[in-house]
């Protein structure tokens, strides 16, 4: 028989390397037509780093994203990045980009002051234009700045970095330390259907609510959550390289036939995502890390839902049909004994 159950899980997750101390740099080079080359060597592995980094730089400079290209391709030309891990890229590259944008504006002001013959204190930068506050007609666009500076022998490159403050050394007795200043939060509710004759579990509905601070690009953030859901379902229900571990380590999955990851057919029939955008006081534009936390709630929520459905607790992941059925049998046997 198909038994329905509902389960939930609530988590939080730090942004950036454990204990901080993981710097990144961003450079912004203005070209002769006013477009901008951004560099940072974070890795684009599908999370949407490149576009999100550009959106934050575009925001900081008040210009459209179409002004930018981004180079993350190698260690000779792209600015330093510590790593692409720990849900750090949006946050740390974003803060570095803001810092680089500020540096760029400062350098643009210095150049424009000379070009326009205006005191630097009188200049204002807004949305791709530098102008004299009291006489907005006296102005230069980014294109004019780019051309005049380059052909005049001055190169304008804004550079900025960000270093998450390293936490204090861990106290060996209490373990106290500061893993991260910024934490993301989330809760998930899932509805499952459990076939109590075979132990097969199906995730029917999945509701995610995450606070990742300001969402820089909802399309990319949703993609992260969709992927988190799928990997969370895989972790909860399917994935195990050596199902007979530790008794037998030699029966081992070696390809996608045997290492089962979710397919199109294994995604929930219905899923919803909501973001709570609670401003983070430290993050770029209030953003926090997103990438990893969004795969943490599904497995426990599924296990709790299985309990709700059939009254058995899966204490060893994953909840394969076999594991679930063994527990159901055990429970039925115990109940029979009591009766």
């Amino acid at each position: 028989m198909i038994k329905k159950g509902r389960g939930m899980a609530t988590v939080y997750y730090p942004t950036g390397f454990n204990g901080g101390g993981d710097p990144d740099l961003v450079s912004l080079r203005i070209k002769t037509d006013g477009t901008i080359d951004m560099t940072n060597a974070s890795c684009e592995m599908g999370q949407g780093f490149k576009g999100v980094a550009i959106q934050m730089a575009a925001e900081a400079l008040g210009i459209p994203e179409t002004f930018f290209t981004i180079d993350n391709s190698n260690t000779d030309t792209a600015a330093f990045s510590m790593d692409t891990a720990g849900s750090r890229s949006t946050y740390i590259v974003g803060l570095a980009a803001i810092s680089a944008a500020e540096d760029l504006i400062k350098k643009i002001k210095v150049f424009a002051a000379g070009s326009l013959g205006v005191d630097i204190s009188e200049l204002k930068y807004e949305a791709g234009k530098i102008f004299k506050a009291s006489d907005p007609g006296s102005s230069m666009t980014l294109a004019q700045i780019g051309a005049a500076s380059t052909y005049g022998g001055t190169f304008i490159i804004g550079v900025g970095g960000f270093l998450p403050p390293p936490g204090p050394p861990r106290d060996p007795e209490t373990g106290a330390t500061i893993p991260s200043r910024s934490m993301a939060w989330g809760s998930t509710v899932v509805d499952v259907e459990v076939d109590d004759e075979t132990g097969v579990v199906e995730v029917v509905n999945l509701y995610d609510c995450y606070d990742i601070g300001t969402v820089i690009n909802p399309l990319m953030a949703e993609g992260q959550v969709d992927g988190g859901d799928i990997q969370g379902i895989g972790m909860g229900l399917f994935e195990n390289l050596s199902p007979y571990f530790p008794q037998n380590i030699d029966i081992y999955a070696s390809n996608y036939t045997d290492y089962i990851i979710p397919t199109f057919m294994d995604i929930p029939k219905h899923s919803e995502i909501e973001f709570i955008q609670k401003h983070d006081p430290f993050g770029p534009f209030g953003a926090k890390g997103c990438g990893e936390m969004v795969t943490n709630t599904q497995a426990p929520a599924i296990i709790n839902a299985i309990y709700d459905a059939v009254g058995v607790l899966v204490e060893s992941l994953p909840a394969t049909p076999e594991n679930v059925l063994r527990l159901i049998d055990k429970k039925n046997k115990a109940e029979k004994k009591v009766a």
Partner: protein
Amino acid sequence: MDLCRKEVSKMFNSVGKRVPRYDGIGHVTGRTQYVSDVRMPDMLTCKTLRCPYHKARIKSIDVSEARKSSGVYAVITKDNVPHNLFAMVPDHHVLAEEITRYKGQNIAAVAAVSREAALDALAKIKIEYEELKPVIDPEEAIADGAPQVRPEGNNHLFDGTSLVRKIRRGNVEEGFKEADFIVEGRYTTPSQEHAPMETCCSVAYLDASGKLVIHSKAQGLYFAQGDLANVFQLPLNKLKFVGGTIGGGFGGMNSIHTDHIAGLLALATGKPVRFALTREEETLFSTIRSPWIFKIKDGIRKDGVITARHVEVLHDCGAYTELGLYAVEKNANLIAGANLIKNLAVDSRMVYTNKMPSGSMRGFGVNVGQYAEQVQLDRLARAVGISPMEIRFINAFHVGDKNHTGNELASVSTIETLQKVAAMSGQKLPEKYLAMSSDK
């Protein structure tokens, strides 16, 4: 930094926009180039000899016939590696020393004109093993008299002295006394593979200036560059990493699987060398999310407040540290979950076994613990007779609380996410929970 202080999202122009993927057109047209798409003129193919045993002693190895094999440009073993240690905690051998510690550990590598030539050469390597007794089960590995995975022992010593990484807050014994119910649970998680669609791959060559260039799947190009500069004993201006667009990482590409060997063979041959893992190699021999065991003992009052928690963690790190230690540290910080627990003790251990090393994987060190913790939390709720929602509201963190390592929490929203997810899933919450807020 005024620019990051904008409070109202409406004020943003670019931030918050649904901008399609920057490299999306490349993806849908197939024009995006990944490392596995890189081809160079005159490129050699690399294949490696891997240890067939969980643990063995290499009594002798003779590569002379392999070197003479048709189409072969280089055969390397540990003797050809300038500095044979790598990884975040540099205790992993690029090519095995006398003792191999996990099945599939690289022992020798060949660069040849074709895959066939490389494999033919590997077949000609004469190697004599003495199979040694391995230890696979982490709980067996911590026992006295267990076969030793490493000469310094199977247990990792934290801060060089302690068997456990401790987190202590309040007084756990007092907390248990205060409790109406004591609830215990034991939870385990298995080995998991990252399974990115693109397997790990490197193409290494010397450029015109003599610089070693490595097209890499690394998630951190600079990270890998720093690590391998040491292996190659090259200054950073003689080593360039190229990459930044990869077919999935999920943490697996924080560990080096092919860059080191491809680089060594490019240096040895002066030719471009490609080393790509097959799916089978990727699944069997690359780093994984390694197994964990959690024992949680909780005290809870009738009103649903968790009064004390004691967690014992055992992480099965595999044969080399790789990122296992980092995972244990991060896990220890977060294993008590998004709950304010005043009396807490965490004792985390890490043990070496004869398996592939523990890498980082999305949710790194944390989601395994959160599975245990969140399942335990429902158990607590059942013991007290409250709902899963209630126990999470009752124990939620608030702004200004310090978490379990003394980290002051600036932006908190357990309560808000619970309220929202309840509404989304059609659960009616009692008024008192709807009225709650993370801002005290």
